């Protein structure tokens, strides 16, 4: 097709191929508009994704839209970093609108010098940065009693992974002079719930970040702008957002979020408290429920694995319902307490089967089955579900939670 004819054609049929071209392509595929014939959009100050890209967080229906959660669409993402705009949310009192110039962090309690810090002052402390996942302890809560979520977004979408940057909490606490009898640090947010969690001081002095940046820019409002805690490997709610206050004390505070909530009820009626660590977990994101039905032939199985205790060392995948397991390829760099991408080539023969992944971490921990978890923790646990996730591939190529 010559250039004159081509121009003529595209002016008349911008969006859909019809007639001759449709016949040539064997169907009604969208045409590729010839973008070489016109000037594109100008440069922009702050970029936006293509108008053709529409994936978004799924929001848990609630009578209280300011105290709910939104789930990351893991099935549609690649790599290990979650775009900031798609990072999961869990709010207890909505997203506050905070002026960073007016915001202060107060550090007091069992310290020699109670101090307040502006954002500019916190930025003057030595930088610490790391790529780190954050997972809500309720991620997968529907799966305790059997297949629950409709797709991977609803079964596993309360984990996300970002590059975080900020100050070492240890540096800021030392600045205030930690008293010898201090054992716990209460963190309080400036949201409508004045969200509070207490963190063992040892953890605070180890690897906790006072984060002001996520994926290279300021935190998003829904991620705690202008300042949040980032507590690597611990359940997400302890990484308090919109952080306004830290108080050092000799004992835990027993706030609502560490007694009534975020505790694990056991069959004998007792409950575990201070169950902070998110244990090793993995999920196949492709294929997974919700996509177009599979056709037989080659598919690369893709998924994510992570552990709050360190590096993922191995991910095994079964494509025959657990009769055999193969080691998946881990795509580096494999970082501690970080989403790790795994893949495994697979040729689907068109027969119904079940696929699943299980991960190992550097402590030797192996991701358990639902049955093993329930045998130990019973039927009334809500948090910390990390069972092997099984997808059923039906003979017609549809994939569902099994």
């Amino acid at each position, binding site marked *: 097709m010559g250039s004159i004819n081509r121009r003529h054609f595209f002016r008349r049929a911008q969006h859909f191929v019809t007639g001759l071209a449709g016949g040539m392509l064997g169907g009604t595929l969208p045409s590729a508009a010839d973008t070489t014939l016109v000037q594109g959009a100008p440069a922009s100050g702050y970029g936006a994704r293509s108008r053709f890209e529409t994936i978004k967080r799924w929001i848990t229906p609630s009578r209280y839209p300011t105290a709910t959660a939104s789930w990351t669409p893991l099935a549609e993402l690649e790599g290990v970093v979650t775009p900031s705009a798609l990072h999961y949310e869990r709010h207890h009192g909505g997203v506050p609108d905070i002026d960073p110039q007016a915001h202060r962090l107060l550090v007091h309690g069992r310290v020699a010098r109670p101090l307040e810090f502006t954002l500019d*002052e916190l930025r003057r402390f030595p930088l610490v940065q790391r790529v780190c996942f954050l997972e809500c302890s309720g991620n997968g809560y529907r799966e305790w009693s059997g297949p629950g979520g409709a797709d991977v977004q609803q079964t596993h979408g309360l984990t996300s992974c970002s590059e975080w940057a900020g100050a070492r909490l240890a540096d800021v606490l030392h600045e205030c002079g930690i008293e010898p009898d201090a054992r716990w640090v209460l963190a*309080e947010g400036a949201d409508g719930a004045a969200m*509070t969690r207490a963190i063992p001081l040892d953890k605070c002095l180890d690897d906790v970040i006072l984060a002001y940046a996520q994926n290279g820019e300021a935190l998003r409002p829904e991620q705690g702008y202008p300042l949040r805690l980032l507590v690597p490997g611990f359940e997400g709610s302890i990484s308090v957002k919109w952080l306004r206050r830290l*108080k050092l004390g000799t004992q835990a505070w*027993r706030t609502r979020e560490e007694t009534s909530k975020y505790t694990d009820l056991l069959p004998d009626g007792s409950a575990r408290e201070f169950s902070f660590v998110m244990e090793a977990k993995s999920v196949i994101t492709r294929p997974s429920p919700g996509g177009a039905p599979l056709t037989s032939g080659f598919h690369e199985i893709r998924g994510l694995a992570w552990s709050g205790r360190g590096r993922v060392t191995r991910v095994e995948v079964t494509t025959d319902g657990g009769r055999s397991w193969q080691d998946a390829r881990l795509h580096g760099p494999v970082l501690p307490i970080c989403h790790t991408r795994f893949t495994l080539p697979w040729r689907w023969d068109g027969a119904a089967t079940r696929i699943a992944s299980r991960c190992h971490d550097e402590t030797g921990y192996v991701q358990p089955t639902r049955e093993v978890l329930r045998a130990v923790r019973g039927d009334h646990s809500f948090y910390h579900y990390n069972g092997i996730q099984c997808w059923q591939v039906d003979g017609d190529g549809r994939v569902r939670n099994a």
Partner: protein
Amino acid sequence: MREQGRHYRAALALVPVLAATTVAGADAGDDGRYGLGHAAAPAHIAAQDIAIAPNGAELPPGGGDARTGAAVYAARCAACHGSSGREGPDPVLVGGQGTLASDAPLQTIGSYWPYATTVFDYVRRAMPFTAPGSLTPDEVYAVTAFLLHANGIIEADTVLDRETLPAVVMPNRDGFVPDPRPDLP
């Protein structure tokens, strides 16, 4: 404190020198500090110091009993939690004692919460949902008394205040165990 304050000012004076050095480990001053931040005024601390630990040390003056609390509850809480705290639709606050080991555990303030101070702390900071932080200390003491009385934990005429509230022993006070994970065979 006077001595520490002097060191603090000395550290501030070192900042320009520190900023010019790139030697690893030499970024903080001799005392390990950077000289950042500014002293927090006691009044400013007191205004924010609202978290109530089990010892109740930060509880404010004031008090209230279940009778007063019933009116506060009816006006500010019942729309979401039900007229008696048992109906919902939002978290059930009353009942459930003896159910935690059953097939249908009901985790309420009375059956599950280990410390009464937590009720005061949470209600004051986060409730009512549509107007968090709007109750006076007297109202928070009173509605706490209402909820504890409804759960059979205190008498109707018990006045809760900064002395009596921390002394309340909750039914599930000893119901919590440390996290033993990894816990699987």
